């Protein structure tokens, strides 16, 4: 084995791939339980297990290879009808999958948690009901040696163009060799090996076709062997010795291409199984996938930042253009400047949008782990649940995706544990025994909307009120005045929900305040809609991105501060004479409601302009169900701003979310309304 290559470089690719395959397994196994006769699905599961087996073995992760091998053999029996799909088998397979995930985590962390796979393997072998399957390693070795000793007929299918090239070459006295290279099963950098093979042949002839396609070979998406057709003057023996001289090559098989001969292509990986149809499906399936490039997330972040800079400069340019126009009036040069400014502005806008799109992921990245979770939880709770997911392809900014998983898990968990009733109870209520939970995502204007809806028992406002009074969240006086919607919102109040409380009330609430905090942290909103006896629906609204923010700009002295517009309810002018004192706090009555008032300059603290105004502007913000007003010196206007951090040295400042650069190059500070409320002691 060559030491020139860094295994870490391949580890990343391996882990990405493993994650992908594990995800496929996870999703399709759950689906398989519902569609037990779905042969395509079984094949898909088998292929994922097979790929994982191959890649883990080639990276030398024995434990993973061994376990996937056993899983694969059970799947193979299922696929060939030797076993039938039962819940028990699915459970075993899922257990195996969980162990694989743990092993993968071990690989990432580099420390062994001592996952015991032998009992799992025994279980799996038991359901196979057979003698021990041959150990994985020996099997591969056998396969390789078989290929070496008795080469089977090599067959390849060339398309018209390739056939044309091949026949033309042959007519000109070139040889057209169909070559199959088997790498040693313990070869670690298969992609690199393959590259060396092609590189050594580069000036000896022309490779006109490879199986799998060359990009897949480069990405190491093949098992232990790959094939190619080369047009060359070399003889078969010379070609053979050139390839054999490269280390880690187990076997080489070379045959002349029969021009005009058309046959089923044999392909990677599936040779051991001898199933040509699957592999051709696979090739076909991949052809439909859009071409993609893997890009480092950091690079996208940098691009986004650069685009942000351009946005700032666009604003500055427009400012300059504006002031030149006022001082110099109509002038040809200024007209051109204006034209360029507008055009540049548009292009920068589009550029920013495109980069933003590049950072978007389909929300399926979050959704795809839910079917399994719902299945497991439902099983544990003894409930039957039909889980429907819609809008998997809805795209969200990466930063938002990272944050949205946990709140959704909470909501789904609650829907299963407390929303959906047991089968008997449902029947008694005249509902179908199987409950339904629907998770849906879609775009609406400049927002992403995610809904979690169940047809369970819903929430009882009366019971919520009782509990809230009990918990000291509200007084009975206030409770009597609450609307139904306000009552439902009480479940988000900190301290309302604990697991024990929830089940005897109307049913919901493991950490609903945490759910709301999470969502509001990413500038989202959450709303409930519930009908007693009929079900509950949570609606989450999220911004498309966290990097750019529409803000209300205000002044304290000469310094500009930005309120995220998502938090701003309204702007009012308050008559100083109307301000009252309640418990040593300034409040004012706005349309009959008490609004606590704070001077922004006191809360931050920050120097203001010192001018005593009779009617200072007040920015009214909403955080959860609370409303509070901040007195500022002056209003500046609304603008899109790019959020930048204050940097590691300064770190988190309570009440500030970051900084941004204004059109004139000055730095404005972005306010964190939640933090401000904390500082204000609200």
């Amino acid at each position, binding site marked *: 084995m060559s030491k020139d290559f860094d295994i870490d470089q391949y580890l990343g690719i391996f882990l990405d791939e493993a994650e992908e395959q594990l995800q496929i397994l996870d999703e399709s196994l759950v689906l398989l339980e519902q569609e037990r006769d779905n042969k395509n699905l079984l094949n898909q599961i088998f292929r994922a297990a097979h790929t994982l087996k191959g890649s883990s073995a080639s990276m030398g992760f024995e434990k993973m290879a061994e376990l996937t091998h056993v899983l694969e053999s059970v799947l193979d029996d299922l696929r060939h009808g030797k076993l039938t799909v039962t819940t028990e088998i699915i459970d075993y397979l899922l257990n195996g999958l969980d162990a694989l995930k743990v092993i993968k985590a071990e690989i990432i962390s580099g420390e062994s948690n001592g996952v015991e796979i032998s009992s799992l393997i025994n279980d799996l072998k038991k359901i196979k009901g057979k003698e021990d399957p041959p150990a994985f390693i020996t099997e591969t070795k056998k396969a390789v040696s078989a290929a070496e000793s008795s080469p089977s007929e090599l067959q390849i299918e060339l398309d018209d163009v390739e056939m044309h090239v091949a026949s033309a070459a042959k007519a000109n006295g070139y040889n057209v060799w169909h070559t199959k290279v088997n790498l040693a099963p313990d070869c670690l950098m298969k992609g690199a090996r393959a590259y060396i093979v092609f590189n050594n042949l580069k000036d000896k002839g022309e490779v006109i076709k490879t199986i799998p396609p060359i990009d897949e070979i480069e990405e190491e998406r093949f098992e232990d062997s790959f094939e190619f057709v080369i047009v060359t003057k070399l003889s078969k023996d010379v070609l053979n010795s050139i390839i054999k001289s490269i280390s880690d090559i187990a076997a080489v098989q070379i045959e002349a291409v029969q021009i005009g001969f058309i046959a089923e292509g044999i392909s990677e990986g599936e040779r051991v199984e001898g199933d040509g149809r699957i592999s051709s499906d696979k090739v076909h399936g991949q052809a439909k996938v859009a071409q993609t490039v893997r890009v480092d997330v950091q690079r996208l972040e940098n691009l986004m930042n650069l685009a942000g800079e351009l946005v700032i400069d666009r604003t500055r340019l427009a400012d300059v253009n504006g002031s030149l126009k006022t001082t110099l009036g109509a002038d040809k040069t200024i007209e051109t400047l204006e034209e360029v400014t507008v055009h540049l502005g548009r292009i920068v806008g589009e550029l920013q949008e495109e980069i933003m799109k590049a950072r978007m992921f389909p929300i399926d990245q979050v959704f795809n782990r839910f079917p399994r979770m719902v299945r497991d939880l439902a099983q544990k709770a003894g409930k039957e649940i039909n889980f429907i997911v819609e809008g998997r392809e809805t795209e969200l900014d990466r930063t938002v995706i990272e944050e949205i998983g946990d709140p959704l898990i909470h909501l789904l968990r609650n829907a299963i544990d407390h929303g959906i009733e047991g089968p008997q109870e449902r029947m008694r209520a005249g509902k179908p025994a199987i409950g339904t939970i629907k998770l849906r995502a879609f775009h609406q204007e400049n927002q992403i909307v995610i809904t979690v809806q169940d047809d369970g028992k819903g929430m009882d406002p009366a019971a919520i009120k009782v509990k809230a009074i009990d918990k000291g969240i509200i007084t009975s006086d206030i409770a009597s005045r609450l609307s139904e919607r306000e009552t439902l919102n009480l479940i988000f109040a900190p301290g309302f929900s604990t697991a024990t409380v929830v089940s005897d009330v109307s049913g919901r609430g493991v950490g609903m305040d945490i759910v709301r905090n999470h969502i509001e942290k990413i500038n989202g909103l959450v709303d409930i809609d519930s009908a007693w006896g009929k079900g509950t629906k949570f609606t989450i609204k999220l911004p498309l991105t966290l990097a750019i923010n529409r803000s209300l700009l205000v002044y304290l002295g000469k310094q500009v501060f930005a309120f995220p517009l998502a938090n701003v309810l309204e702007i009012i002018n308050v008559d100083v004479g109307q301000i009252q004192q309640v418990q040593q706090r300034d409040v004012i009555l706005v349309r009959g409601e008490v609004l606590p008032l704070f001077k922004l300059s006191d809360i*931050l603290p920050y120097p203001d302009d010192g001018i005593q105004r009779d009617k200072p502007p007040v920015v009214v913000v909403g955080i959860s169900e609370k409303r509070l007003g901040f007195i500022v010196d002056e209003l500046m206007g609304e603008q899109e701003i790019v959020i930048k951090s204050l*940097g590691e040295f300064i770190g988190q400042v*309570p009440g*500030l979310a970051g900084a941004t650069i204004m059109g004139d190059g000055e*730095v404005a*500070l972005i306010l964190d309304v939640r933090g401000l409320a904390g500082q204000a002691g609200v």
Partner: protein
Amino acid sequence: MDQEKNLVGAAEEQLVVFQLGNETYGIEISAVHEIIRMQSITKVPRTPSFVEGVINLRGRIVPVIDLHKRFELPLEEETPHSRIIVVEVKGVTVGMIVDSVSEVLRIPQNKIEPPPPAITGGIETEYLRGVGKWKEELIILLDLEKVLDKSEYKILEQHSQELAATK
């Protein structure tokens, strides 16, 4: 590298030399990003008093500290010679306000001595890397990592917040 240095004689250090009050200080040139004129600084609330605020350095938000305040030296008026030295230490970029920047020096390593206890008016020895002798002058070499140390800074931050809270 070492060989190269031996060729030119004794190993040297390249320093950016600046004034702070009456003293002359030096920091290693490799840490210096750039030296800029004073510009408008945006104050940031709830930061230690030596943090003057943040500036826009060509689209980047960079914090700026006042070294006088950092070392509890007597404050100096801002003059046309005042500069901000932008340094990068362990990936953290910080601007430092100094009274003036005088020159870039190569100083042989054998002219650098460990800091004697309590040499200067105010700066505690722990922030010093040593003292360089150059002609008739003493150049106090700052240990930037210590000066910008976060853990120390965190303590100061807490302290100043407590102060703010008691006010």
